[in-house]
């Protein structure tokens, strides 16, 4: 990893308070007035670097903090602790004005094609807005030309651009959403589950489109998904998250051939496979703990089959083995 990181998050924490106002925090317990403050720990201590030109996939199940991570990186929510850098410069504490040059370079593609386009704006208006905003000196006709070329590049007929989103199918809307992200010619794209709301045959189309765009425009991707099959296809490196922490970070080929973290192993074994009669998967014990009360020690210990006493006590640190980073005591001790 000699190249410098394009985007980095360092020691990131994000908590969402779920306690209400002062009155709702107070409660009587054992005859004493107690003030209780609770929060959902969406991300607890994540370090991650995205290297220029790569496609880093972040996988994990619902509630693991992957979407929160995407939003923190895009500056949609501020981290509780830690920092986000772009080109080695810290960006999470910038004002709106100072953030603008980065807004042009970083764009986001969203999950739900039915909610990510403003229903009261035509496709033309939706696409023109970011271009006009970031390039105030462009003339109307120049902006129109960009819109035409970008709609063509995502496979939508430019003559349809005066229509409203509800006149398009889910797949076409997702193409338009991608066009909006590409319109300002970014270098880094965060894609938050961009294909999981689509049908199988449409998923393939959109994934191909993203791969083409990546090649033609030299894009760096942070790709958030729960679908491991897609990861194997799209990602150059994969980060596996569980309950707000990073379990394993490895090159895609390696992660799929030799998963090392027990959670990664369970996750990979659970994918339904074609051509397999019996579903032989690693059964996890118990249930996912709530992110309000995280377990002590390793967050995965309550479900892990390799747990020992140390796992329940001590939070495992990320250790680097060749090109793989793993946070697991069992791996460190050579037990698996």
């Amino acid at each position, binding site marked *: 990893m000699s190249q410098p990181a394009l985007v980095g998050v360092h020691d990131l924490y994000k908590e969402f308070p779920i306690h209400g106002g002062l009155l709702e925090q107070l409660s009587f317990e054992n005859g004493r007035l107690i003030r209780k403050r609770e929060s959902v720990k969406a991300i607890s201590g994540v370090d991650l670097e995205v290297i220029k030109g790569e496609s880093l996939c972040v996988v994990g199940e619902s509630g693991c903090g992957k979407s929160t991570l995407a939003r923190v990186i895009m500056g949609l929510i501020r981290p509780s602790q830690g920092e986000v850098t772009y080109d080695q410069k810290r960006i999470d504490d910038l004002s709106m004005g100072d953030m603008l040059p980065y807004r042009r370079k970083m764009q986001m593609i969203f999950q739900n094609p039915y909610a990510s386009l403003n229903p009261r704006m035509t496709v033309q208006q939706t696409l023109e807005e970011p271009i006009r905003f970031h390039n105030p000196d462009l003339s109307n006709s120049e902006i129109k030309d960009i819109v035409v070329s970008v709609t063509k590049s995502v496979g939508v007929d430019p003559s349809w651009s005066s229509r409203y989103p509800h006149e398009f199918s889910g797949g076409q809307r997702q193409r338009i959403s991608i066009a909006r992200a590409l319109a300002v010619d970014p270098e880094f794209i965060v894609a938050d589950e961009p294909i999981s709301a689509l049908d*199988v045959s449409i998923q393939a189309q959109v994934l191909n489109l993203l791969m083409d765009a990546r090649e033609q425009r030299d894009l760096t991707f942070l790709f958030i998904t729960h679908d491991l099959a897609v990861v194997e296809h799209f990602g150059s490196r994969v980060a596996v998250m569980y309950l707000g922490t990073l379990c394993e970070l490895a090159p895609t080929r390696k992660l799929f051939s030799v998963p090392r973290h027990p959670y990664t192993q369970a996750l990979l074994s*659970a994918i*339904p496979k*074609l051509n397999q009669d019996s579903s032989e998967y690693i059964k996890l014990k118990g249930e996912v703990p709530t992110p309000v009360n995280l377990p002590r020690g390793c967050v995965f210990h309550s479900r892990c089959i390799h747990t020992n006493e140390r796992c329940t006590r001590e939070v495992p640190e990320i250790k680097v083995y060749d090109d793989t980073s793993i946070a697991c005591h069992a791996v460190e001790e050579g037990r698996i």
Partner: protein
Amino acid sequence: MRKEDLVALRDVSFTLDKGERLGIVGESGAGKSVAAFSILNLISKPGYISGGEIRFDGKDLTRLSLQEMSEIRGNRISMIFQDPMMTLNPVLTIGTQMTEALHAHQQISKEEARQRAIDSLAEVHIPSAATRIDQYPHELSGGMRQRVVIAIALITKPPLIIADEPTTALDVTIQAEIMDLLMELCNSSGVGLILITHDLGVISQMTERAIVMYAGRIVEEGDTKDIINNARHPYTHGLMGALPQKTTPGQRLNQIKGGMPPLNEIPKGCAFNPRCPLVDDICRTTRPDYTTMGSTRVACHKALSEES
């Protein structure tokens, strides 16, 4: 059939043996849920069954009175839906909801019903079932809720369960558990299963036979293995090819162009013809009939043979 009505299903027929597991695959808008809902006559107004019959145990379900139908629903045929929160009533305890189904269909004492409910929860591997039974749905995790839904579906010991995307809303590790559970229950008690899903992986693990639907019609039906490995219909073939699992990592996926037509714009001839790579003049004019090829029945003029 009246003029101007949209046809959601056309010419759909299939059979299910006792204890058999059948999968219905298709993308959204293919009519797979409508097909399953028709079996229990659960189509919401203004939809209606314009023709054909549905035979269950020798009885034609389309001709039953409301009374007779409710005797079948939830008793002889149970349903499992995608979102457990839609099925479970948030203001009633699990126990109440489970015994309700029993009381509706059987003369049974309160204590006996409660015991049956606890047994049923234990059967779907819910730990400490005797205490869980008095909890409310929101106190359970997503996977547990779906287990409760399955327990409710099984409590009357029906010979057939219809499951509409039972694992779609769940995470992969939970999905694996639920699939495992369903398989185990089917094998141990000989329950028949109609599994509706868009996930070909789930179909291949869970079912013996599969039906592929496209634009309201069955395009291919046969042994699941043959459908997965030896798809005859270009649509099934394309669908398989579009799966990331079937392509070398990093390569472009094989995509089918276009999308599923809406019900009011289904093309003439074969509904798949505008998207089909093998399209010919006959496909644009004539609706293909079914031909049998090995274990599969396929509706295509250009059905793929073994070698292609």
